[in-house]
């Protein structure tokens, strides 16, 4: 396995986490591949940047922050992924109460013609062993 490529994919994920935690929708969407498929466990599949963007605009209403703990990362030239546990916390926009959830996620990044890694597939679930 090419460790440098794995680190490039990890770096792409770190950029995504930073943009998400800043609730910066434009910075976040610049990290997506045009063919993004977002396979969330609780809602219908979202395909393409405009659909995914609208979903994030809605989710940013709680000013979410996410933590991530890696469990596996593999990459080759052009394609790589990271999987692990996540914890999202936020603030309910009406009553100010804390909201959140935990789960497992896999994010797959594809390298574009400019050499930049872009998020092309994102799936999560809610298994019983998540302890982040």
């Amino acid at each position: 396995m090419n460790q440098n490529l794995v680190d490039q994919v990890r770096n792409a994920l770190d950029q995504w986490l930073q943009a998400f935690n800043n609730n910066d929708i434009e910075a976040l969407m610049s990290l997506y591949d045009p063919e993004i498929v977002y396979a969330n466990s609780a809602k219908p599949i979202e395909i393409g940047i405009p659909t995914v963007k609208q979903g994030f605009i809605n989710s940013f209403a709680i000013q979410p922050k996410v933590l991530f703990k890696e469990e596996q990362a593999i990459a080759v030239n052009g394609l790589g992924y990271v999987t692990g546990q996540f914890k999202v916390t936020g603030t309910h926009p009406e009553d100010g109460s804390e909201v959140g959830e935990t789960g497992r996620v896999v994010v797959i990044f594809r390298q574009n013609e400019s050499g930049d890694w872009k998020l092309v597939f994102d799936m999560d679930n809610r298994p019983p062993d998540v302890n982040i």
Partner: protein
Amino acid sequence: MDIKEEIRTALNQWLTAFNSNNIDTVIDLYDPEIVFANQSNPIAIGIPAVKEGLIKSFAVKPKLSFTEEQLIAVDGLGYAAGQYKMTGTHPGDGSTITGKGRVVAIFRKNEAGNWKLVFDMDNCPPDVTL
């Protein structure tokens, strides 16, 4: 055969082996670093852990069907994502068991040039129609 077709072939081989409930044939298709991130069970890492889970699941003689939603592949790594439907038979009362959801299966090519399943995750969103 182009790389996308190689991934489809690898997945179809896995589906055929799974639907035959042949544990040794299924396990032969896994990468040693397999991570099975099932929605209902703790993560299973490595072939022995995955094999134990499959042996248990074969008690219901499961059959799977799959409909592809996305497939991307490059030399050495590729994946297929889509909807699945599982049917089986309860070993106690003979009743039919069903399940459905969405899955992603990531394959890595080994040094011998064979595609092996290295990551498998599923969930159960509300839009699955299979």
